[in-house]
């Protein structure tokens, strides 16, 4: 029984231990582990960022040197480049400093949310901030437009300004059918503002196409810049709107109302795309950021990549990842031409991706295989997949996809709609009534502008505005394509004439032969109008067709155009309805052509002249300025140090030399010596013997001094130090000292020889006697080895202080300062 209880107790104990382990210890250890990781992350982060700061400072210094170096060798562009690199290093260093003092400590304290705004949202907002509200002085103003604001620039190096056109421009817009224009957006490219030539060429190439759809209101190309004007659509992008809708919906997905709203936007997009495709254009950059929601309608903007569907250009990989069909990239890499594929299908793919992002609040990272995890009808999943599936199997047109989306949106309960019911599956796809007009690059220039319509409002109205526009366009293009009937008049000469207009025969055949036959000009005019009106319209269309770009590139084109126009008129009816002789008309046309050609050439020359030296903006940037500042500050600092050093070296003559006796100096000795040196002026040393509390100002001298002492050996340590100090001070004053007490004396034998000779000259006479003084002076005069003699004589009977006698030859003392000999005497005279 006890065993059973024991067993139960053990089991119970084990269970309790296990529970304790699971409930308390495991979380505790986890917590400790988390804390340790947290601390290590903090310490590691601090160390890493500190090193980054140091590295950034070093690198920045190197860059600043490179900036200055390149400026010195006149490599402005390189210096500008290094200036930018310098700025980047400073920026990186500043970020690291922020992390060291704010970011890491905040994370350590669990305040990550606090710094998230600064670290993430602020940079995003700064990046998305509009540019300056006024064009820079370099860009210049836009005539007939008043700039009232700016928008964030896109990735094409452009600047976007919001502007208000003046009355003249508004009237011009109204004439062209844009009667309700309020504010406009001016998209400006300038080489000076950082745009590149390829960007400008690409945008300008898409310009004519966009203009024909009424998307572009105005444009201008000058040597300074290129800009075009579009209607301003205020509002947020679909990306922002999508985030907003998802924020207001449950986490599972969009609410029913939001879903319908989102589908409405997609419908608007598809209707716009259908209009583009009907007009023979391919947008090529459909994505949520390029869809502006204004008054509940979706407006597709950014015409930078618009391409004619029948363009002869090679496909490019331009576009935005995740919204660009990978198949298009493959084709582009293979060198496929635009007209060899159906570009509209790539827009359909992008529309499917937009629908996906609207439902999922994310981008389709896996193309057609992207999963939709949010709540949405199965039919929408089907539509997205159908739009993003393989190139050959996706919706053939935007209209087909639009029909499906409309079907789902209009259903009572979209969640009850089966994919099998969709028009595209059930065979009920509403294809356009009118045939799709295929537009070639060359056709576009001859198209009349289409009346602009609100794309979202113009969607499903067969025979409505866009349809009529498309029909008009179709008629125009068909007319443009109509070939004149030629009648050959001379097989050998190649002459021929038009069957329906024989007036153009002969000289007029040049126009036909050059491939720019007058056919479009005759037939493009609206039906039912007078011939004169048709001509005027044809002239206007010609002016539209050949823009300023052509003028700048090919000055002769316009002249030829005038020639053809003249030739046409020669063969037709004059503007006033009065026929002139063909020869006269031709003469006049030639004169005008010559004038135009000359004018175009002048413009070309001016353009070339203005363009020289401005291809690349290599001005002073922040990095260059900062580098120069640092370099100059460094230079000034070094120069200052050198100046201070030289002043110091000048003052070094006022040296204070302290001769120690033992290990200690007397209090205030050094200070007094410094004051004495300062007072003595340049070229004077203040010599302080520790034994003599008062400093001795000694000039810096050149001369030889022989020191002789008759003191008995061994010398007392104190006396020895005193004497040696005196000798050392004389040596430091610049004198050459011969003494057995000198620490620097190497040849003791020579010194002893000198001492012996002077002692012989003295002949045991007392040093204070006149005979001794005379004998020693004579000896100094005769002896070349020394100029001054210092003789230290012991006190009689060893009592009192030793006497110091200083002798000097008159020649040696010439130029020496007054009181030199007494000074020497004092130097060796112990005080106290």
């Amino acid at each position, binding site marked *: 029984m006890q065993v059973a209880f024991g067993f139960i107790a053990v089991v119970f104990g084990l269970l309790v231990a296990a529970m304790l382990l699971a409930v308390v210890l495991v979380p505790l250890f986890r917590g400790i582990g988390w804390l340790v990781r947290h601390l290590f992350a903090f310490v590691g982060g601090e160390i890493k960022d500190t090193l980054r700061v140091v590295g950034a400072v070093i690198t920045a210094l190197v860059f600043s040197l490179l900036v200055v170096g390149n400026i010195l060798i006149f490599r402005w562009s390189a210096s500008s480049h*290094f200036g930018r690199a310098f700025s980047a290093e400073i920026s990186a260093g500043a970020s690291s400093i922020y992390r060291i003092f704010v970011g890491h400590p905040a994370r350590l304290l669990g305040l990550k949310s606090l710094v998230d705004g600064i670290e993430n949202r602020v940079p995003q907002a700064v990046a998305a901030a509009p540019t300056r509200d006024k064009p820079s002085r370099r860009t210049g103003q836009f005539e007939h437009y008043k700039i009232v604001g700016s928008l964030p620039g896109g990735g094409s190096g452009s600047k976007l300004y919001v502007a208000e056109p003046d009355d003249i421009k508004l009237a011009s817009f109204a004439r062209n059918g844009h009667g309700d224009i309020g504010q406009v957006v001016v998209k400006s490219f300038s080489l000076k503002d950082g745009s590149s030539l390829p960007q400008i060429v690409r945008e300008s190439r898409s310009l004519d196409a966009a203009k024909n759809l009424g998307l572009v209101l105005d444009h201008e190309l000058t040597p300074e810049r290129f800009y075009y004007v579009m209607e301003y659509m205020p509002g947020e992008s679909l990306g922002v709107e999508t985030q907003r809708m998802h924020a207001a919906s449950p986490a599972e997905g969009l609410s029913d109302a939001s879903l319908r709203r989102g589908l409405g936007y997609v419908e608007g997009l598809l209707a716009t795309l259908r209009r583009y495709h009907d007009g023979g254009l391919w947008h090529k950059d459909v994505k949520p950021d390029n869809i502006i929601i204004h008054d509940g309608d979706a407006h597709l903007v950014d015409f930078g990549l618009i391409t004619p569907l029948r363009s002869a250009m090679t496909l490019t990989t331009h576009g935005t990842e995740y919204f660009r069909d990978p198949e298009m990239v493959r084709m582009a890499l293979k060198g496929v031409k635009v007209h060899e594929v159906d570009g509209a299908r790539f827009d359909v793919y992008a529309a499917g991706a937009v629908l996906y992002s609207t439902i999922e609040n994310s981008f389709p990272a896996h193309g057609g295989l992207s999963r939709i995890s949010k709540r949405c009808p199965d039919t929408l999943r089907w539509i997205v997949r159908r739009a993003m599936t393989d190139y050959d199997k996706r919706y053939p047109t935007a209209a087909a996809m639009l029909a499906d989306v409309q079907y789902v949106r209009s259903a009572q309960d979209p969640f009850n709609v089966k994919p099998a019911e969709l028009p595209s599956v059930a065979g009920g796809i509403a294809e356009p009534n009118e045939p799709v007009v295929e537009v070639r690059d060359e056709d576009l220039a001859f198209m009349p502008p289409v009346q602009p319509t609100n794309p979202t409002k113009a969607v499903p109205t067969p025979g409505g505005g866009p349809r009529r526009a498309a029909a008009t366009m179709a008629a125009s293009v068909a007319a443009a394509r109509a070939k004149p009937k030629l009648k050959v008049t001379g097989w050998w000469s190649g002459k021929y004439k038009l069957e329906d207009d024989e007036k153009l025969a002969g000289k007029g055949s040049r126009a036909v032969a050059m491939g720019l036959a007058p056919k479009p000009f005759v037939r493009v005019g609206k039906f039912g109008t007078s011939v004169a009106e048709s001509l005027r319209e044809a002239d206007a269309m010609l002016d539209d067709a050949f823009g300023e770009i052509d003028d700048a590139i090919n000055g002769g084109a316009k002249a030829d155009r005038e020639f053809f126009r003249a030739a046409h008129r020669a063969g037709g009816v004059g503007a006033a309805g009065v026929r002139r002789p063909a020869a006269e008309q031709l003469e006049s046309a030639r004169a005008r052509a010559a004038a135009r050609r000359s004018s175009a050439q002048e413009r070309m020359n001016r353009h070339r002249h203005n363009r020289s030296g401005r291809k690349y903006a290599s001005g002073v940037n922040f990095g260059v300025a900062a580098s120069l500042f640092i370099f100059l500050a460094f230079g000034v600092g070094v120069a200052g140090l050198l100046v201070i050093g030289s002043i110091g070296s000048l003052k070094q003559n006022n040296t204070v030399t302290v001769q120690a006796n033992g290990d200690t100096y007397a209090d205030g000795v050094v200070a007094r010596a410094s004051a004495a040196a300062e007072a003595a002026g340049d070229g004077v040393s203040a010599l302080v013997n520790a034994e003599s509390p008062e400093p001795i100002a000694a000039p810096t001298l050149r001369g030889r001094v022989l020191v002789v002492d008759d003191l008995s050996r061994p010398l007392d340590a104190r006396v020895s130090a005193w004497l040696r100090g005196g000798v050392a001070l004389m040596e430091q004053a610049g004198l050459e000292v011969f003494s057995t007490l000198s620490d620097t004396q190497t040849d003791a034998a020579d010194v002893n020889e000198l001492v012996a000779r002077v002692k012989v000259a003295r002949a045991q006479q007392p040093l204070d006697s006149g005979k001794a003084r005379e004998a020693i002076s004579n000896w100094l005069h005769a002896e070349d080895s020394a100029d001054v003699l210092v003789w230290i004589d012991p006190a009689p009977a060893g009592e009192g202080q030793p006497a110091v006698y200083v002798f000097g030859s008159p020649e040696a003392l010439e130029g020496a300062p007054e009181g030199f000999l007494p000074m020497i005497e004092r130097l060796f005279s112990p005080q106290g």
Partner: protein
Amino acid sequence: MLSSMTTSFVARLRANDQAAWFELWETFGPVVRAQIMKWGNGRIGAETVRDLSQETMAALSNSIERYDPSRGARFSTWLLAIARHVLGDEMDRRMAAKRGGGKRGTSLEEAWMTTSGGVGVDEAYEAAVFRAKIEAAIRQVEKACEFTDFEIFRMRVLDGQSGKDVAAAVGVSEPTVSRRLAKVREMLRSRVAQTVATFSFTEEELAEGERNGLVQSPNKADDALFDEAVGEIFHRQMELRATGERGERF
């Protein structure tokens, strides 16, 4: 011995066929990006990793000339070596550009040619490479078969819907769903075999399909296992892609 498909693909890469390099990057880009993120250990931003484009890969096509299959490197190891080289080269170029100089030449380490590889590979990476092959096969099937057939396969296998629901959604009978599903499955089996053969250098890599339940000569029971394996592999690969696109490491 390499299969003819592998040698053919490698030949295209050697010929600097941009499309081949793009295909390589499209197929294995997410895996490589995830691995680079892992290597970068937070030092390399998601943007930098994303910027490593197929053009950069194509620029390295010369390195493939030095590939020696007799030394027994796995395809995955080879890919990793390239990825590492790409990263290093990109970093060098950026630094050189920062310095104002030109591109500094880098040399590809050849340690990867040996069996051990010389580069740190782990099971997660190997599995990700295999899943990428299967995903590529699924994409090929999507291209090759009818949209409706593939949708039936997707709903039935990838989304896990019942045959009845799929039939109702598409508006066909259940036997039709089964028939079309079988058709897509067979196509997928064939494509899996081709893809694995194309992107495998060793026998071990070739046998990975069988090991993961993708039996090539199946019976009726194996079909369900095959579907299940495909579904699981696909979803795990989607997770990897989603992780990579969020800039996280796997």
